């Protein structure tokens, strides 16, 4: 049995307009940060989890994403194992 800390970063798929990011970009520009080219909003979940091995944990994380954390129509996600 191993214990791991896993970070899941959920972002929008390419081509999906991100109104939140656009809004933040606009506000940053209004604050004088003229050099801002784009803003992308991502959500990160840090999960502590135990499992038989890393492979099993990765499978569980994928299921978590599929069942709750992402909507496959708009989201992509990356998983990082933090030991």
């Amino acid at each position: 049995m191993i214990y791991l800390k896993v970070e899941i970063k959920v972002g929008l798929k390419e081509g999906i307009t991100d109104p939140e990011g656009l809004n933040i970009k606009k506000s940053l520009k209004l604050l004088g940060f003229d050099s801002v080219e784009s803003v992308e909003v991502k959500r990160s979940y840090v999960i502590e989890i135990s499992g038989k091995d890393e492979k099993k944990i990765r499978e569980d994380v994928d299921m978590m994403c599929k069942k709750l954390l992402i909507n496959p129509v708009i989201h992509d996600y990356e998983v990082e194992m933090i030991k």
Partner: protein
Amino acid sequence: MLFGSGWGDLMDRSEIKICVLRIEGTNNEDEMYYAFKRLGASPELVHLKDLKDVFDYNCLMIPGGFSAGDYVRAGAIFASRIRAKIANDLHKFIDDGWPVGGICNGFQVLVELGVLPGFKRMDYPDACLFLNNSARFECRPTLLKHENKGKCVFTRNIPNGEIMLVPSAHGEGKLLLPRQKEKEYFDRLFENDQVVFRYVDKDGEYSGYPWNPNGSAHNIAGICNEAGNVFGMMPHPERAYFDKNKNGFSGMNLFESVLKYIEEK
């Protein structure tokens, strides 16, 4: 009630049990409850934890609000909890033709559950109600055109082409379909008579913002599944139940339609 061909053909209205399902953060359950109560049916406010058997009811309604604080995504947590508790029963309930409706957050829940647009049975979403293009909570009356030709059991009492004023109040109401299948899916929605309401302007034309509050493609405000018994819409007919402002539309028609369907089922 005694009409139709004789005794027993129609269900008595007071026997029609409506499950208005709630969890923490739903906030339109009372309007939904009274919409059915005022029409003589027997609605019940049921917390998901207290739901014993969905087949105790003739109709399942998911009210608006901010279920579970809209954490993760609007409706996602409510949907996952429904899935964990009654997934198989819910599919059977739908297959048996019992009506399931969701308004505002309820629509988001039905989409997250994968039962709308419901092209095939799946346990993950096949569509998304995403952030409004304005990135704001849009809260005001919107004009809707009823476009269903009779498939949706929730709107059979409303004439096709009728335009009505219904309040909208949502931050995530833009209907998105999978990009690679977008055209195919929208074509199917229209061909199958699954499009129920579309936002229009004062001349009845499909217009952009602010008439379309969220940027939904084809100005879609509400859809149903292929069988017509699962229905979701973003605006709130239960908040326009009485035509107090004399707009010529009362949300009552929508609830009357579904009760009539159950009576005749």
